[in-house]
């Protein structure tokens, strides 16, 4: 007899950026879609984000950043995920990331980027369709 398996999502705000309107809306939408959402609050270092993902054994990490510091923070986060053997976690990002950086971020391992104006449902759908299957 089991209790339903839930999708666990970590919504994180790396760096010093304090815009959380979008992150909170996504958190709420994912919760309303039946997922368990862990929100770290603001001002997270890559180390804190990856440790949290590990302790909470999440299926998805959603990074929200509008400050332009993604070029420094995202590669560090991906590197730490590799070091901690968390490579089966789905990593997505949202916020303000210039078009010209998107390809580079995807190559690092960020599966998809959701910029301003993305419908919330699109993000929820993407998570359902791309969350790693766990045994």
């Amino acid at each position, binding site marked *: *007899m*089991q*209790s*339903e*398996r*839930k999708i666990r999502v970590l919504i994180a705000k790396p760096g010093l950026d304090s815009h959380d309107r979008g992150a909170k809306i996504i*958190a*709420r939408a*994912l*919760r*309303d*879609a*039946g*997922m*368990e*959402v*862990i*929100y*770290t*609050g603001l001002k*997270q*270092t890559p*180390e*804190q984000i990856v*440790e*949290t993902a*590990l*302790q*909470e*054994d999440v299926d998805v990490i959603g990074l929200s950043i509008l400050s332009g510091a993604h070029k420094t923070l995202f590669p560090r986060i991906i590197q730490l995920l590799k070091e*901690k*053997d968390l490579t089966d976690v789905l990593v997505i990002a949202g916020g303000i990331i210039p078009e010209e950086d998107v390809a580079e971020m995807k190559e690092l391992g960020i599966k998809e980027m959701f910029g301003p104006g993305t419908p919330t449902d699109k993000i929820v759908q993407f998570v359902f369709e791309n969350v790693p299957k766990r045994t």
Partner: protein
Amino acid sequence: MPKTDKITRGVLAGDRRSIAKAITTIENNTAEAQKLVASIYPHTGKAHIIGLTGPSGSGKSTLIEKIIRKYRQKGKTVGVIAVDPTSPFTGGAFLGDRIRMQELSTDQGVFIRSMATRNYLGGIAKATKDAVKILDAAGKDVVIVETVGAGQSEVEIIKVAQTIVVLFAPGLGDEIQAIKAGIMEIADIFVVNKADRENADKAVLDIQAMLQLNTKEKTWKPPVLKTTALTGEGVPQLIEKIVGHRLFLEKELERKRSREKAEAELVEAIKEKVASSIIEELKKEGKLEELLQKILEKKMDPASIAEKLLNEEFKKQV
């Protein structure tokens, strides 16, 4: 099952990834979970399990953060299970308790896990209890269970703990009256946080008054403490009381064990004395062989013979 073995070994070695995976296994309540709990169970019993509950706005998370830091200063390792409600409408949950503890997430001596109440078949209390066992078996000196003291299931969750700390903050409304009766009964320590506020002293008095009304004789008298979680004031004293409660429990357990032992010894002694005096008597009256023959020929069983003898013995007394 090789997977469970690997996780078990990892948990017992204190490997954080294994601990996380183990708790996930429990959350998904598979057959594996039962095996897992059974295999780590022999390694539990060392950790001090502390429950912390209180209404939202009471400063719970800030206080826990300070408590963890104090324990870390003393060289102790800490596990935290933060429980939040699952929405009955959507089945999802927002788990935001670790926000105030985030700076501690990279401390390798601290493990924080957020759990939702879900719809566990064994109830959330069992799932929480099992998660606590994981952290216990992993070697954590202290495991803190945190929940918001709102509903009946929250009372069940907090009972998982050995030491239950209930938190209030002045000015949140009529919260002392609003707190579930169940919580008041089982609390071991009361804390009034935000002690720098006006009504803090009044809140302390109100709680003490409520405790007076509870006429049940208790061996542990719950203290009422004041803290200011933001500055850490009052936290060392709180830890002192928590540790003190653990010592009390150990002494209680010791006392209980000693009493049980004494009772067992008395029973043995009575058995011995009664038996030997009756057998002596039977021997003297020459009736022992007759009774033994009845047992061998299966005409009467030993228990019925013993009862008959005792009844006759008591009749003699009257």
